[in-house]
Each structure stands twice: as C-alpha cells, then as structure tokens.
C-alpha cells in the first residue's frame, strides 16, 4: 500500500467569531510517522485535525502534504482517511457498504471494490460480519469498521479523532497496539487526537501538547516526560501528574515556606519546583511529612502526604506503603527535580 506523505502546518490559525481556537501553529509530521495531538478538551487539537482534513477552513496559515498545499482543497481532493470518536458509520448501510463507500464515490469497478473491502476487512478481523449493520455489531467492531473505511482508499494521511475513547478499557489496550501495528505496516502518516496522555505516550513517535489553542511542546514521549518545557506539560503528562510547588529562588536554592532545597546555580525570583511522584522517596532522612491517604493500585500505591503545608503525591512499591496518619520523611532526589520560572517556563539544561 501507499507510503505516507509529510504533513506541514504553517502559521495555522482558526478563529470562531472572537474565540481563537488555534493560534499560529507551526508543526511538521514526517512521512510514516505517528504523531499524537494531546491536550484537555477545548485546547484546539480537534480543530487542528479538522483543518488538516479540510472540514474547517483555516482563518490564516497553510497546510501542506509534502510539497502540495492543500488548505484550499475540498476534503475529497486531499487523500485523507479519518476515524471519528463516534465512528460515524452510516447507520443505513451494512459494514461492507460502509467500507466500500469511499470507493463507490470514486467509481471504482465493482469487482475491485469487493476485493479491496474484503482485504481491508480481513486485515482488521471483521471479514465475517460485513453483511451486518453498524447497530448490530459491538463497539469494538464498529471501531474496526470505521478504521477499515478510512484505510480502504489507501490514503496518504490517516487522521484519528479519539478513536479509542468509546471502547471498554480492556479492548482499548489491544486496539492501541493494533492501530500502531497497522500504521507501521502500511507506512501511512498518522495523526492521533487524544486527551489521554498514556495513550499518546504509548502510541506516538512524537507528541504535540496543546493548551488554550497553542502548541506547548512537540517532542518524543521520553523528552516530554524527562524535560517538560513548562508547568502545563509537566502537570499534564504523566500519571499521577507531577507535583508542582510554587515558591521562590533565592540564588543558592529554592524556598517555599519552610521547605528549602539547595541548588548549585539558581536564578532569582518566584518560580516553581516540579517533582514526579515516582521520584520522591519515603526514606529515613529528608523532610518531615504526614501521610493523609494511601491509594493502593495493586503493584504500587499512591501516597498523599502533607509536607510543610503542601500536598504531594508519592508513588511507592506495594510493599513499602506507609500506614495512614504515619509520620514519615520524604527525600527530594536532586537529579529528578524540575524548575520553572514565574511564567511556568522550564529553567535549566534543555
């Protein structure tokens, strides 16, 4: 099947009346790459996807597929396949006719339609239920049919708008791997919109984090996790999220109330300390804290402690969890600390 193209967004902006949904977005997706657009609802990720699909016209800026400028084109002239959160299967058509729909519109001969629909359906494991209507199959099967409809015309770009969020938790995990495998096999360039950071980190080559219509950071999952560019990314990526403490840089350290941490080179002024729950240690030495709640997760547990008036989440192994109300000591490993300035921008080595 076809090899994907690159997708390039240039100064892309979308306004609805006075509301700016997407502001001045620059971003490039390499051929065959899977990129996730991650962010809370209303952050502009779906609006961006709909502009790439051609459903929305950008207020300003351009969209390129390879060298081809596509933003003036109708969706049908863009060669994209799309899967929607609700799957958007045509309820009056059988799964076969749903998948065949894009081919019928292209006036592909009947025999070839049959062959290609069969082949795509087999690839997705729904070859046996093609005569049923969407209402007669399960959510997982509907999702596969929607994916088959998007892939059957062998598009250069595959757009996935929250394709997994209507699935049961168990099927979701297998569908994740399935989509990733197919996308790699077919070599199609894919963009996945999701609000689930775990999904984005697990599936994508690179993740674009959105907030309030603006791109916050565009990086690999590892980079996002280890070097979040600002407090928004730090708080959004990772589960449970990073602990953020507002305080003051004193030149030789960070201070927030009675909490003081030494720093070799530190700026001056207000700012933030960030530390991931999995990096905090409940140890023999460190700052005194009191355990408020212990949430067992099975293999590990989230311990919520109060430390100098701050509430912190700490991830500990199941065997090491303290009792509620226990007095403990919490250690901040210097190498795992993140610092942000008063505007929330990361300070320190990039």
């Amino acid at each position, binding site marked *: 099947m076809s090899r994907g193209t690159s997708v390039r967004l240039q100064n892309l902006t979308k306004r609805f009346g006075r509301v700016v949904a997407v502001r001045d977005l620059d971003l490039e997706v390499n051929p065959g790459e899977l990129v996730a657009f991650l962010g809370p609802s209303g952050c502009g990720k779906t609006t961006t996807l709909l502009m790439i699909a051609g*459903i929305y016209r950008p207020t300003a800026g351009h969209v390129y597929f390879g060298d081809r400028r596509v933003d003036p084109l109708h969706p*049908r002239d863009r060669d994209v396949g799309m899967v929607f*959160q609700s799957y*958007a299967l*045509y309820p*009056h058509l059988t799964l076969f006719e749903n998948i065949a*729909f*894009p081919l019928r*519109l292209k006036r592909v001969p009947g025999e070839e339609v049959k062959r290609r629909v069969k082949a795509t359906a087999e690839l997705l494991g729904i070859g046996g239920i093609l005569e049923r209507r969407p209402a007669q199959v399960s959510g997982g099967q509907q999702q596969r049919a929607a994916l088959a409809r998007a892939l059957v015309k062998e598009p250069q770009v595959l*757009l996935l708008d929250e394709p997994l969020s209507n699935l049961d938790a168990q099927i979701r995990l297998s569908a994740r791997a399935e989509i990733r495998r197919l996308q790699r096999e077919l070599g199609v360039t894919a963009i996945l919109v999701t609000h689930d950071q775990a999904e984005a980190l697990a599936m994508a080559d690179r993740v674009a984090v959105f907030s309030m219509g603006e791109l916050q950071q565009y990086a690999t999952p590892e980079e996002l996790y280890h070097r979040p560019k600002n407090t928004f990314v730090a708080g959004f990526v990772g589960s449970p999220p990073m602990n953020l403490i507002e305080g003051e840089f004193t030149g030789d350290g960070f201070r927030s109330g009675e909490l003081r941490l030494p720093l070799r080179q530190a700026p001056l002024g207000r700012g933030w300390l960030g530390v991931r729950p999995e990096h905090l240690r409940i140890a023999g030495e460190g700052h005194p804290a009191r355990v408020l709640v212990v949430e067992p997760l099975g293999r590990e547990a989230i311990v919520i402690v109060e430390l100098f008036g701050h509430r912190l989440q700490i991830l500990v192994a199941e065997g090491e969890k303290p009792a509620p109300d226990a007095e403990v000591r919490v250690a901040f490993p210097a190498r795992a600390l993140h610092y942000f300035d008063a505007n929330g921008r990361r300070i320190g080595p990039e």
Partner: protein
Amino acid sequence: MRRYLTPFLFLGPASLLILLFFFTPVVATLLLSFTDLATTTFRHPSWVGLANYRDLFADPFLKKILANTARYVGLTLAFNVGMGLLLALVTSLVPENWGDPFRALWLLPRILPPVVYVFIWQGMLAEAPMGLVSDLLGVSKNWLVETPWVAVILANGFVGASFGMLIFTSAIRAIPRELFYAAAVDGATTLQTIRRVVIPMLAWPILFVTAYQTLSLLTSFEYILLLTDGGPGFYGTEVWSLHAYHLALSNYFGNVEFGLGAAMAAVLVVIGVVVSLFYLKIFNFRALVTEPKIEV
C-alpha cells in the same frame, strides 16, 4: 383484576374522548347513511337500507369525482413532500441566520386564516389590471378558470409543504455532524451526501409525512371550497369530501340530503381506514414501537 386497574385508569380519559368525538360520529354517520333524511323528510325519515349506497354508485359523475380526488390527493401530496424536503435541505445547507427566517416565511400561509389566504390567491389569479399573474404574464385571463388544478394544488401545497419542512428539518438536524464530516472525507460532494446519506436517513420521516398528509388531504376540502367551490364548470375540481359536504349541507337545489352525504362520508372513512392499514404495514408499526421504559 387489580393488575388491569392502573392501565385502565391511565387510558380511560383518552379512550373516552376518542369514543365520544371519533367513534360516536362514525357510528352516527353510518346509521344516518341508511336513512333518507333530507330537508323534505326532516320530521319523518325512514329506513332505506342500502338505497343511498346504490344511488351513490349509480351516479354517473362518481367516476369523475373519484378521479378528481385521486388527482388532488396525489399531486398535492407529491408537492407537499417534495417541496417540504427541498425546503428542509436548502434551509439546512445555508447558514442558520438565512435558513431560519426563510423557514418562518414559509409558515405564513399556514398562519393566515384560510379565507384571507384564498382571497389573496383569487386576487392574484384574476384578470388584469387586478391580477398579479395576468399582469406579470402580460396575458389577461382569469387563471382560476384557465388552470383550476394548478391553483388548487399550489394553494394547498403552499400550506402543506411547511409541515414536511418542519419535520424534515428537525430530522436533518438530528443527524450527527460527524456523519457529514465522514461523508466529506470519504469523497462525497454535497449532492452525493444528500442522496446517499441524508435521504436514506430520512426514510421514516418521509413515510410519516406521506401517510399523515394522505389522510388529511383525503378529508380536507376547505381551500377548494373557498377557491373554486368544486368548479369551474360541472364538478371541475369537485373532490369526494367536498361532494359529501355539498350533498349533505350545501345543495344547490336547497334540498340537502343528509342520508346520501352520510353514505359518501362513510365510504371515505372506509378508504381512510384501508389507506391507514396500508401505511401501518409499510411503516412496520410494531418494529417502530419500543418497549415501555416504565412498568405498570
């Protein structure tokens, strides 16, 4: 016994109303149709059995009236449903601040009192210099006499189309937006989206409007009465229900024949029931009715 008490109580009031205002008149009409009740026999009507029906079917003009009725119902129905669908599609495709006022405009004929509405039509169709149509066409004629059917169907259709328009518009709005997105990404033009996605999804509303309007057109005659009164000429646009009205309530000779009119109305009831059963069958009514959500 107690099991049946609650449903009985709930269904009671509505059943009573149906019994009183629907069932009783039908029975009364049937009884009346077996008598020779008329102005001349008003104080001493006699039982005549099926004589009224015999007279009715022996009437040489019955065929023409039946053909008129089929033409009136068929063509007005086609206009109502087709125009309703067209209006709903067009007003849904354009931006809302254009579509909404346009739809409101189409409701005007329905809001106007029929007498005023028909008066406007008569004025428009009159000879020059009064008639707008004569003026515009440059040919001064009474178009109501020249083309009575066009006038009857359009006057009814302009009122009727707004019904379908409202039903179809809400049905179109109920289609999830993502289906339109999907169709666009799949490569469909606007016309292809309408033909392959929207219209198939409107199958039930279209059937409903067709069924409902067939029945109401069969029995409605007020616009024809006011517009042409069944003319021009001899029974030019006389339809079944109008003829029943003429026989029973407004006879040219002054001798109104209640019995004969009742027989005509009774036949119309039978036609209506047959048509309803036919529609219920293609509606697959049982499949449409969902299980009640509340236990009684």
